[in-house]
């Protein structure tokens, strides 16, 4: 699961039988989380192998590349370098991009109904400096000291409910 543009969260469950099967024939097996990144040509290449504690059941991978697509495999690796897959590979997950897209292709559709631009709907040229200024005006970075708000931490947050205390203690 993506958490933010640089972090993926993985969790796993496996039956004891699948662990035993994956361990068979391996000398001193240890668990590794292999991460694969989709390259520009479309194929996946391994970009990271991280030792994990199987018992934890989950792991975060940090410092990944925003906007890239990943998949992972949980493996048991032996001392000789051989490894066996433990359970099925994960699905593909794409991290959100960080910052404005480099793709500029203005296409307009008539709303509601159109989900693709009708022919010739590209719109007239639009000056880049205006696009940049409107993007700047749309950006929270102009308000660096302000909490963004939201029920997840701002002024509008959910009221802190009673702790259920019945004594005289205050906050």
């Amino acid at each position, binding site marked *: *699961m*993506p*958490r*933010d*543009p640089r972090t993926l*969260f993985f969790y796993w469950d496996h039956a004891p039988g699948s662990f035993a099967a994956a361990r068979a024939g391996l000398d001193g097996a240890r668990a590794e989380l292999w991460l694969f990144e989709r390259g520009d040509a479309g194929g996946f290449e391994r970009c990271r192998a991280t030792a994990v504690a199987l018992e934890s*059941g*989950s792991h975060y991978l940090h410092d990944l590349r925003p906007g890239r697509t990943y998949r992972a495999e949980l493996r048991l690796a032996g001392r000789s370098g051989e490894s066996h897959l433990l359970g099925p590979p994960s699905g593909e997950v*794409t*991290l*959100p*991009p960080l910052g*404005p*897209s480099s793709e*500029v*292709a*203005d*296409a*307009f*559709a*008539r*709303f*509601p*109904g159109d*989900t693709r631009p009708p022919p010739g709907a590209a*719109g*007239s040229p639009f000056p880049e400096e*205006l696009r940049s*200024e*409107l*993007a700047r*005006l*749309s*950006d*929270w970075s*102009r*308000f660096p*000291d*302000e*909490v*963004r*708000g*939201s*029920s997840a*931490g*701002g*002024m*509008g*947050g*959910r*009221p*802190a*409910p*009673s*702790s*259920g*205390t*019945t*004594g*005289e203690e205050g906050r």
Partner: protein
Amino acid sequence: MTKEGARYLCLHLTAHLPFVRHAERAGRPEEGWLQEAVAFSFLPLLRALDRLADDGVRFRLSLALSPPLVAMLRQDLLVRRCARALERHCEVADREVRRTRRDPALHPLAVHYRDEARSLSALFSERYRRDLVGAFRRLQDAGLVEIATSAATHAFLPLLAAQPEAVRAQVAVAVSHYRRHFGREPPGFWLPECGHYPGVGELLAESGLRYFFVDAHGVGDATPRPRYGVFAPISAGGAAAFGRDPESSAALWGSDRGYPRDPAYRDFYRDIGWDLEWREVEGALRPGGRRNLGIKYFANGGGSVYDPRRGAKRAEEHAARFLADRNRQLAHLSARMAGASPVVVAPCDAELFGHWWYEGPRFLESLLRGAASDPALRLATPSDYLAENPEVQLATPPFCSWGGGGYAGAWLDGSNDWIWRHLHQAAGRMAALATDFAEPDPLLRRALEQAAREVLLAQSSDWAFMLRAGTSVDYAIRRIREHLLRFARLHDQIRAQRVDPAELARVESADDLFPEIDYRAFRRRP
């Protein structure tokens, strides 16, 4: 027809509380969330909006009411308990009038609170006849308010994206619930916590929902890069995404410089439920212990006694300033959008108004009154804007939210990540049930419907939020476990085709929302 150059201001309130109903015992502190919201936000807001309506002010405001909130506001038991809570509030206010009778600084304020408490209680019982959903609906039917819906149990959808059946069910159940309570199709959708992921727009459009909201970076980081920033919606999968304007949001919500921090306003945190000696408030606080009682004597920023008249005056000044700032902002934008119509979108939690920001309803009333007669801008809902500006740029917002650093951090960290495997597994098993049981007998159907309710209730974003915030942690864990365990038992009984009618009736009675639910919302698509 496109009205080039028109300038729009879209104020949007969103109201949500998790479904909390404990029929077995009155006085659970968690039921106080609804009672506080009713007393200190929804009633003052409705009073302000109805005053405008009574005065013939033609304002436009959009509002999302989450399905669990609507369900609770329509539950006899909870409504009766809200009425009782309002009566208790009157009693507390009466006691404060007596307690402060020799205190010339606090006594006038105590009298103010007593009058306010009586006014709110009368509003609830007499003007609104305990039906706040009906009151909001009347404002919608009068063409003043546009009510959108939200996910069935306010699930944080980006973290359910791997289970599209779960997201579809969150949307479909919300839509049918909305039809039941508002007698029409919902025009738009509040993505809980503005949680978006690529593909959710298509699911909303499938259900006829025309718009939703994202935080500013949801538009700023969209692909391809939008031409107008957050000042025009983008079309994502057939639904329009409206981006939150940081400038207006900072004015309303900013933690340091936002209006609610003004020293003329009431300090939310100085409540007698915490400030007074235990013996002085014990009667009001039992059962449940220390909590806010809604009577607060001090202004922001120090020890000065709060002055409601000064607060109200400042709210009107802030409304005038906000309107002037939006006019300046829109004029600036209009000159840079090559004939396109700018819209400034300011979404807020409804509970900001009244509950957190005591003077907020006065601010909103004054703002709407001023904006409705301002020739330089148009108050508009998203539907109004789209009707007049149907040419929308195609672009897809990224995975994003309006909290937790802008992504999923609030709902996925070391405090709450353990829940997701269980939620995903339950959603997958529910999808399998819904797919496998196409023609159930009546008892099995009831069990399938209740299983769907339990999965949805477990998915509420509130539980993960509470785990991370460290508030009501035990309660959040209990709720997640209860719903998942109830689902697991129903699942096994359905699979075995041996449903226990008595147990089913007990669970139906405990979690009795969405009577119209269709479990087939979870069915897998080919």
